[in-house]
């Protein structure tokens, strides 16, 4: 094993341009897959943050008696997943609206009566967060007698979630494609090196080298292509990430954007090593059959 490493490195140095192109190609594949992963990680984080901040507004029907409002408060609080339910009388709602529209208060001056309904502002319990659970709870609240409608930005949230899902699927499909492409590029490089070394391989066989002894340097080369390509790809991704963050630094404060976590970078590196190993495996198998 130890002796195979210098042999592998010597061969790579002898064909350095070819190997450099292979490493760069693997790096590009990792960069693209990494960019998708980065988007997914941040979009997923954003979605879960928004989900955490979600509140369900339950608007009540007109002319509900105070007793019924009290009952409704108890019914809502008894629903599983409700963390807090606060009653907002229509007068208070209008007051909030006036405060929010302070600059354009004149728009509300001509109102003859308060158009806003009484409402409950419902926050989810920490353990019950999640899009599906929010939707379920909203449906349960909407079904209560006296509740006119509920609103929690369902459509918007679901559209965004679908977009994240689409990116996740696209990312996985592209990841698979780039994995195959990377593996075949590594396979091609190692095949070229194997054919350029075929006399040497024949001689090694004649002097009693085992298949493992002959193949090991090529597997090491594949792994080096994978590690170097993976590291270069991640480095490029990080540089791109820092550049974008720097360019939009004013906005960055608004969104919790972060780079890939360590374990995910480790996973990507392992994946790129697997690309290299698979490439080496394919070419060695073909060479063995030839």
């Amino acid at each position: 094993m130890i002796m195979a490493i210098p042999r592998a490195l010597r061969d790579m140095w002898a064909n350095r341009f070819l190997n450099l192109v292979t490493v760069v190609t693997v790096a590009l594949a990792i960069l693209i897959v990494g960019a998708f992963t980065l988007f997914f990680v941040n979009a997923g984080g954003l979605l879960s943050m928004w989900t955490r901040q979600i509140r369900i507004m339950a608007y009540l029907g007109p002319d509900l008696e105070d007793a019924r409002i009290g009952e409704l408060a108890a019914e809502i609080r008894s629903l599983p997943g409700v963390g807090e339910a606060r009653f907002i009388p229509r007068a208070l709602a209008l007051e909030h609206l006036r405060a929010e529209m302070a600059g354009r208060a004149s728009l509300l001056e001509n109102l003859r009566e308060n158009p806003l309904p009484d409402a409950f502002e419902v926050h989810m319990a920490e353990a019950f967060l999640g899009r599906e659970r929010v939707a379920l709870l909203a449906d349960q609240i909407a079904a209560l007698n006296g509740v006119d409608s509920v609103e929690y930005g369902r459509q918007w949230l679901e559209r965004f979630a679908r977009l994240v899902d689409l990116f996740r699927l696209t990312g996985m499909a592209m990841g698979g494609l780039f994995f195959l492409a990377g593996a075949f590029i590594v396979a091609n490089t190692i095949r070229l090196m194997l054919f350029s070394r075929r006399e040497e391989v024949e001689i090694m066989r004649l002097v009693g080298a085992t298949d493992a002894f002959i193949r090991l340097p090529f597997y090491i080369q594949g792994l080096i292509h994978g590690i170097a390509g993976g590291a270069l790809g991640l480095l490029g991704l990080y540089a791109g990430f820092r550049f974008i963050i720097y360019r939009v630094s004013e906005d960055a404060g608004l969104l919790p954007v972060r780079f890939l976590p360590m374990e995910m970078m480790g996973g990507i590196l392992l994946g790129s090593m697997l690309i290299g190993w698979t490439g080496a495996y394919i070419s060695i198998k073909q060479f063995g059959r030839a």
Partner: protein
Amino acid sequence: MTVPAAGDATAGGAAEAEGGEPIIRMFHVYKRYGAKLALADVSLAVSEREFVFISGPSGAGKTTLLRMLYMGEPATDGQVVIDGINLSRLPRRRAPHLRRKFGIIFQDYKLIATRSVFDNVAIALEARGERRKLIRKKVRSVLRAVGMEEKGRALPPSLSGGEQQRVAVARAIVGDPRIILADEPTGSLDAEAANAVFQLLRGFHRRGITVLVATHDTALIRRTGGRVVLLDGGRLDVSTVIPPLPE
């Protein structure tokens, strides 16, 4: 499949001429390439420490015979036994271990052009996983033995044919083989270089290595003498002992 008695294999010649157990035995061996019969019913025994010429015209089957000894290719029929190992029962993955019993020399040297003389010889020991220190020591020793000590750093293309073949001989013997197989080792060399290489082979034979030389150079055989196995059209024609010509 049972291995026939050794006596059966001596049909091709006087195997025990120089004493010792047969280290190579072939029993009614056939080799076909499609419709072409390369070897037909060859039975042969070679004793340990024997020096044997395999001779015959081009296409007689000399190279095929040698290749079958080190599992370069399998026999179509019959059995080959090397040092008590029946090759028809030996799995392919064990072939490398069998080949370590051999030192193989080719007419075209089969040296790696991009590696130094030292590395070309060392490869035989690296393939066995020997330690670096031992490799250095043994390679220097065999390069000295073949008179190539000063050219350890040279690349093969910068050497003459005779020098390249001496490097090939060094590679063949560095692993302390029990058998040397030389396929037309002097075929590409001038008389002086051929003689030098041949003297090296003779020297290693005297140290106890069994040597098989495939050659159609009858002048060389007459000059040195020894046991000659003659192949013709893939068949064993005759096996005889020729005395060396007087100096």
